[in-house]
């Protein structure tokens, strides 16, 4: 029996209509992610990454097509799988007046985490938050807040983790620290991770597969090594620029 993909997207389309103007934010994309893999979703601003992730999360209803997580159709069947998923995004905050411990307690209860007190202590130790547990979340630095958001995203030990620019606005040291933790988590839990990022070094380091989006469509989809070879480039940033500036085809032909 074939393995059910952790995430499966099939002809997924999102069209917004505003004042008679039609915008195809996501335009008929398809991909399937094998359980236990880390995939990067690359693309410039407005490429459709966040909309795609939001449809997979069930926060946005597709205009047509399908988004399935562990076999559950999103958003219709989301309650089958939401306890086994989580996400983190710089566009979503935690309540600032609550302490870190209070925030993790609330989300731990929402996700039915067993032995919550011990789980909070453990994840705080892992993410070096133990000394910050009783401080208001709003009083923390950007890097500390990101670690709190990550703690929230990992509180239920998710099988599927969606991350929207998890290291945006972090200094290189903290960003590297976050990446190391994500690598460790994926290794320990065999979790599936879908990561939207503008940081090419991050994607190169963490992801075994890269999906490049442009104007709502998938422009390319392969392993980082295969993409570098195909475009004749040394790093993903140059591949990204080739695609973003419309010279992807020329670069591919030149590399052949």
């Amino acid at each position: 029996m074939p393995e059910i993909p952790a995430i499966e997207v099939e002809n997924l389309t999102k069209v917004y209509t505003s004042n008679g103007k039609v915008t195809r934010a996501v335009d008929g994309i398809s991909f399937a992610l094998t359980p236990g893999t880390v995939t990067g979703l690359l693309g410039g601003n407005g490429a459709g990454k966040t909309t795609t992730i939001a449809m997979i999360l069930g926060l946005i209803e597709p205009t047509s097509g399908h988004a399935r997580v562990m076999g559950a159709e999103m958003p219709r069947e989301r309650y089958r799988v939401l306890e086994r998923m989580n996400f983190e995004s710089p566009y979503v905050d935690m309540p600032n007046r609550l302490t870190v411990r209070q925030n993790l307690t609330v989300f731990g209860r929402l996700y039915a985490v067993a032995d919550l007190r011990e789980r909070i202590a453990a994840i705080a130790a892992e993410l070096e938050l133990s000394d910050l547990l009783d401080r208001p979340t709003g009083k923390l630095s950007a890097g500390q807040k990101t670690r709190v958001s990550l703690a929230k995203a990992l509180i239920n030990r998710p099988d599927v983790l969606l991350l929207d620019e998890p290291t945006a606005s972090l200094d290189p040291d903290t960003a590297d620290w976050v990446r190391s933790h994500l690598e460790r988590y994926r290794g320990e839990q065999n979790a599936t991770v879908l990561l939207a990022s503008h940081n090419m070094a991050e994607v190169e380091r963490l992801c075994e597969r890269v999906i490049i989006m442009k104007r709502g469509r998938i422009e390319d989809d392969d392993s980082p090594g295969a993409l570098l070879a195909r475009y004749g480039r040394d790093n993903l940033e140059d591949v990204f620029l080739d695609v973003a500036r419309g010279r992807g085809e020329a670069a591919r032909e030149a590399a052949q």
Partner: protein
Amino acid sequence: MSMASTSALAISPRRVGAMVLRYLYLLRSSWSRVLDLIYWPAVQLFVWGFLQYYIAQNSGFFARAAGMFIGAVLLWDILFRGQLGFSVSFLEEMWSRNLANLMFSPLRPIEFVAALMVMSIVRLAVGMVPVTILAIVFFGFNLYGFGFALVAFFANLILTSWSVGIVVSGVVMRNGMGAETLAWTVMFILMPLTCVYYPVSVLPEWLQYVAWALPPTYVFEGMRALVLEQTFRADLMLAAFALNLGYFAIAVAVFLALLRSARRIGSLLQSGE
């Protein structure tokens, strides 16, 4: 991990409790929020209490109807503060940009609504109990002296306040913070129509039909019957309750429709205007 029901309609007391806990943490962390709950009801009480005191000295009718204004203002505050307690708890999620975290979590919309209803009562209790004690101390008006009638008044007013709060929250969720003003002002349209301070018979005949379509009208008429005639009008309370059940069901349906619409237009990820 628990094997909780996967139905959208399955209500988990644990998840409702988690949300109530979230709002209690917030109240505990902010003395200004607690003070705000008491401040306006107390100001209202003193304005109307002293006005009634003055009028009663110059009018036989108002001397006989002692407490009518104070009773009306306290019941109005149950209606207004009940809705505000519901809506402000919801707005806290918008202000803190936390709505997407909740909407993506296993929390069901109906559990979210249930938690907001609980918080509406908690916030009302924090604000109103001290004010009812002030009414006894300063004006000799004991709201609790209404006895069982107070239970009927309260149940009907809080149900109406929840119905309005549910619809307002749905509109803000779908349309963003540009619609926040509704939460603070929408209840005032009910003030003249539900005849808080005067009998329904004062209204033009065509407007009386509108008034009788609103459950709080029955409560304020019932309160006047109790104060002026010492009669508890169970018929009015039952009629209000029947109307309230209908409005509550409509409000929940509207909220779920607005949530579906918010998913379609992508507004759950945004907390701005």
